[in-house]
């Protein structure tokens, strides 16, 4: 006890031991919390599994089942699920498993495409509206009010009957109608973030508006963007499947989960034909929900229960 450098008070940890843990960034922290969330991990795994199945649908169908999704075989119509036809066959004898995994390609890519486009529109308009306020804000809120007042499905049916949708135009239309949620959330966050000291500091040293928006504000609201992506994907998949169920989606004969259900009411004796496509939609939506919920909890510790 001769050295003075040793602390005298609470010495439980030993004097030489460093008391602070190495610093972790926000994203490292969020990642750690995400990994601890069991449901979120399950959702992520299911979602990536579904994406892989959709991506490798041609390979899977060739290797395991050997059917073409649109190949008609009237001798084998309405087969029950078996080792030969995993999900059975429909009224044209088309292999239902092959159709289901091919349909995932359309539905998932439309979902992701809509999310990307609507998010781009929503983030940019939300940033502008929140940052500049006044006229720009009024204009954006006005457009949002109009869009929110429209029941989408009737409008989409009319558009779909007039202009035949291909996957890209359908995604574009859905995105143009559906960016309002993202924009509203971003705008709200920007309104609070732009009052922070670091934004004021940036402005004081003469940073341009563009720099403040994209370098200072956007990174700080970006966590919510990832969550919105999830909900946008879900919304797009559900709308697309309802639309193609009614027969106004992407033009046939492309298999989609929605239009595989179009003839459901004639399938009373073949319930599996109604079961599998709907199950595929539900599983996709559920996995994205779990993933998005997990992301939200991981990035906003206050929301954790």
């Amino acid at each position: 006890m001769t050295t003075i450098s040793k602390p005298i008070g609470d010495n439980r940890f030993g004097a030489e031991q460093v008391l602070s843990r190495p610093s972790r960034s926000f994203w490292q922290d969020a990642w750690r919390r995400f990994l601890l969330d069991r449901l979120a991990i399950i959702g992520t795994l299911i979602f990536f599994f579904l994406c892989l199945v959709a991506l490798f649908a041609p390979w899977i169908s060739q290797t395991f089942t050997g059917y073409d999704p649109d190949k008609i075989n009237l001798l084998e119509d309405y087969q029950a699920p078996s080792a030969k036809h995993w999900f059975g066959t429909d009224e044209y004898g088309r292999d239902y498993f092959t159709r289901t995994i091919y349909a995932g390609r359309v539905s998932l890519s439309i979902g992701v495409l809509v999310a990307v486009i609507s998010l781009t529109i929503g983030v940019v308009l939300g940033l502008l509206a929140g940052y500049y306020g006044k006229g720009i804000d009024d204009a954006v809120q006005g457009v949002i009010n109009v869009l929110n007042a429209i029941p989408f499905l009737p409008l989409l049916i009319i558009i779909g009957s007039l202009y035949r949708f291909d996957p890209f135009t359908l995604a574009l239309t859905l995105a143009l109608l559906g960016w309002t949620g993202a924009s509203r959330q971003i705008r709200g966050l920007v309104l609070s973030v732009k009052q922070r000291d670091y934004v004021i500091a940036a402005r004081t040293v003469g940073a341009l508006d563009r720099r403040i928006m994209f370098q200072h504000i956007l990174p700080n609201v970006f966590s919510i963007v990832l969550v919105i992506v999830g909900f946008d994907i879900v919304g797009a998949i559900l709308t697309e499947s309802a639309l193609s169920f009614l027969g106004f989606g992407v033009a046939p004969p492309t298999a989609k989960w929605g239009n595989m259900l179009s003839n459901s009411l004639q399938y009373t004796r073949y319930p599996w034909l109604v079961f599998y496509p709907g199950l595929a939609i539900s599983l996709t939506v559920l996995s994205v929900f779990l993933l998005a919920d997990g992301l939200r909890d991981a990035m906003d510790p206050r929301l954790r229960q």
Partner: protein
Amino acid sequence: MSRYLLRRLIQTIPILLIISIVQFTLINLAPGGPMRALLQDPNASIEDVRRLEAQYGLNEPLPIRYLKWMGGFVTGNFGYSYFTHEPVLRMVLERLPATLELGIAATLISYIIGIPLGMYAGLHRGNRIDHAIRGFTSLLNAVPHWWLGLLCIIAIANIKVATGVLILPTGGISTLGLAGFNPGDYLWHLFLPALMLGTGGWVTFARFLRSETLEVLGQDYVRTAKAKGLGPRVVNYRHVLHNALIPVITLSAGLLVGLVSGAVLYENIFSWPGMGRLLFEATLKKDYPVSLGVGFFLTMLAVAGRLVSDIAYGWVDPRIRYD
């Protein structure tokens, strides 16, 4: 109050105008134009088409046609169907009650199921029933409800085949061959479509009300009420539920728009003779005056619904002032 009402009414006018312009332009600028259905007739000569275009006023410039259409709309003339030559307004009004009844029934169902479930789950946070409610609503949230409707129809049909008993009607508005209007029969037919259309609503209400209840339970005035010695009943109903319900009403506005969208889907699945089914049938036949009329009428319905729930919001929450 009446000034606020007037102002909100005036605010809806530009919204409706913009939507009508968009719908009108979309239909009229489409490839083939609004006469496409008639152009497909191999017996129609160019002269016939020109004559019909003149008859329907389609040879005039687009803005003039829009103004005429809008003028007709204001005076109650929505145009005529290409196929039956019936006035569109009459077709819409014939179908309006069925859609309204289905929508109102679905709204009632979503309140009746959603509010008690959400309230219970919030007040008994963490117990087994709360977990069950949360799990069930999360699952239902991910499932397309129209698919559930299809599964129900298939199940009912199969039960009918197996046992000969029809638990619920799988479509239509009344039993065939039944003379006159029979309220019991009508409600029996209404139940399944309304339950399916209302599922989205009650799931959302239950989830939302649960978290709102938890939020309100942590407020000072709830603690004060308990400290004053009020019984749990009074606190839960007068203080907690009353305040937790306010945001639920805001939520109703958005859900109403969804109900109108859903009308197209569910009326189709359950052969319900409402406006949604009319829109679907007319659009399939490319009967555009009818599509346009019904589409715009549905939009007006959604806008009116939002207006009503906005007013209800201010009426329930005295903190909102009308000015």
